């Protein structure tokens, strides 16, 4: 009986110690969204259970290893105890009840994270192999995600090629982005600061670098930023004919993830000095990089493949790049000497 008491006391001591140790170790990133407080609450309940269960198994185990060690030279067997059905039933029923309690807590927490604010702001997110782009309700598109504090936003997300996953560690919530279907990401940022959205589903070679800035500002700053963006977008759109500056914006949105413009080598050919150069193709032939070649490389990426590279895995046309935008891109490429 003495053993039981000692073990019981040790478990009673170790459990809070483990829990305090865990929660003081700042296991989670900063809580930057309303949902993150809810998720962390569930996490703390989990950690309480883990601390208790860890102690409940480890303490009697190490206690036995110390106290019930075989004495030197003792070759007899230990006491013949086969089992105890009452004990077995208890340690089946209690975990079952714990499981049901955690099922309830889990469902409650999930419900809390999905509470929908009817007039949440809708931002369309397009993910492609290795970059994000955000289309705001006011009609302009940016590669940065600006969000106003304390207002729920619904990101309607879709991918142009493979499965990606939108995750901001400080917001806690993660949601896959699927080709051919829209998935929702509902979040209410409640802490000003700049974070990073990091793609969390393996999406090919540069999955590690598929990131974008997430900037949470006050309502006023957000409105000011939107006003500038709308003005800039309208100014840019007003310029007639193919335009390099517009081309650069499109480049940033669709092509920057793979093509460098400073000549550095990477997964795909650099655009620096491309226009007018002779390009060697993988079937040995060579072609001058004029408007026609570049337009064809954009519209049918697999038609002519540059030597030493795999075919361009991204199809700009079905990602939504229009003919006018292609013209702007070519204008931009022409400026890259």
């Amino acid at each position, binding site marked *: 009986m003495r053993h039981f008491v000692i073990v019981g006391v040790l478990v009673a001591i170790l459990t809070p110690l483990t829990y305090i140790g865990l929660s003081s170790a700042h296991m989670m990133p900063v809580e930057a969204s309303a949902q993150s407080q809810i998720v962390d609450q569930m996490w703390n309940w989990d950690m309480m259970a883990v601390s208790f269960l860890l102690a409940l198994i480890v303490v009697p185990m190490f206690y036995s290893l110390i106290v019930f060690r075989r004495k030197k030279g003792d070759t007899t067997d230990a006491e013949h105890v086969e089992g105890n059905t009452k004990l077995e039933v208890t340690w089946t029923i209690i975990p079952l009840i714990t499981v049901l309690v955690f*099922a309830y807590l889990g*469902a409650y927490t*999930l419900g809390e994270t*999905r509470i*929908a604010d009817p007039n949440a702001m809708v931002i369309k997110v397009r993910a492609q192999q290795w970059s994000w782009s955000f289309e705001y309700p006011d009609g302009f598109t940016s590669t940065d995600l600006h969000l106003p504090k304390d207002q729920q936003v619904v990101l*309607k997300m879709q991918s142009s090629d493979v499965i990606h996953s939108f995750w901001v560690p400080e917001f806690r919530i993660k949601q896959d982005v699927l080709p051919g279907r829209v998935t929702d990401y509902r979040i209410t940022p409640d802490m000003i600061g700049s974070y990073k959205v990091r793609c969390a589903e393996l999406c090919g070679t540069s999955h590690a670098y598929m990131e974008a800035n997430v900037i949470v500002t006050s309502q006023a700053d957000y409105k000011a930023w939107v006003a500038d963006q709308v003005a800039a977008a309208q100014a840019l759109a007003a310029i007639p004919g193919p335009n390099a500056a517009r081309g650069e914006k499109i480049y940033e949105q669709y092509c920057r993830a793979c093509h460098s413009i400073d000549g550095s080598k990477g997964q795909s050919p650099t655009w620096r000095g491309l226009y007018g150069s002779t390009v060697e193709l993988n079937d040995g032939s060579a072609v001058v990089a004029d408007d026609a070649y570049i337009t064809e490389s954009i519209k049918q990426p697999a038609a002519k493949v540059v030597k030493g590279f795999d075919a361009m895995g991204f199809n700009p046309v079905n990602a939504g790049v229009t003919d006018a935008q292609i013209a702007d891109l070519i204008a931009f490429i022409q400026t890259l000497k």
Partner: protein
Amino acid sequence: MPRNEIIKRILLSLAAGLLLSALISEFSYIFLRTPQDRGPQQIVLVVPAGTAERVAHGEAEPSIPADMIFVVGDTLVVKNQDNVAHRLGPLFIPAGAEASLKLDTIASYAYECTFRPGQYIGLDVREATTLRTRLVGILFGGLPMGALFAVYAVLGIPYKKKTE
């Protein structure tokens, strides 16, 4: 243990598992219900008179939302009270008439339409958590529970012959 005893215990365990799972599922459904959790309905969108001019001046008609969320199986009925014919994706609605569009696949359509300034309206068709989904959920929760209870019932509880 005779075979019909085993079968009796298995069936009882499965029933217990399904019951318990039904309890948990329905209880947790309270937290998870969203407005879209309803059976298919008919949803009416009215294009009020004068919308065409407003759109021509680049203003939005307030009563027409930019995005509408539907449930698989819904029917969208567009009533055109304007004096001008309107188009919504595949639908052509003469002035004063109405037309309906069946939405039975999960998708998000971006149809052009003539009664919104952006010339485009988002129709988002969702998979609703209908009763059928909840029953499937109860099955997914109940079967493993039933299986576990069955293992314990058949192998755990010793079988005492009636005669003893």
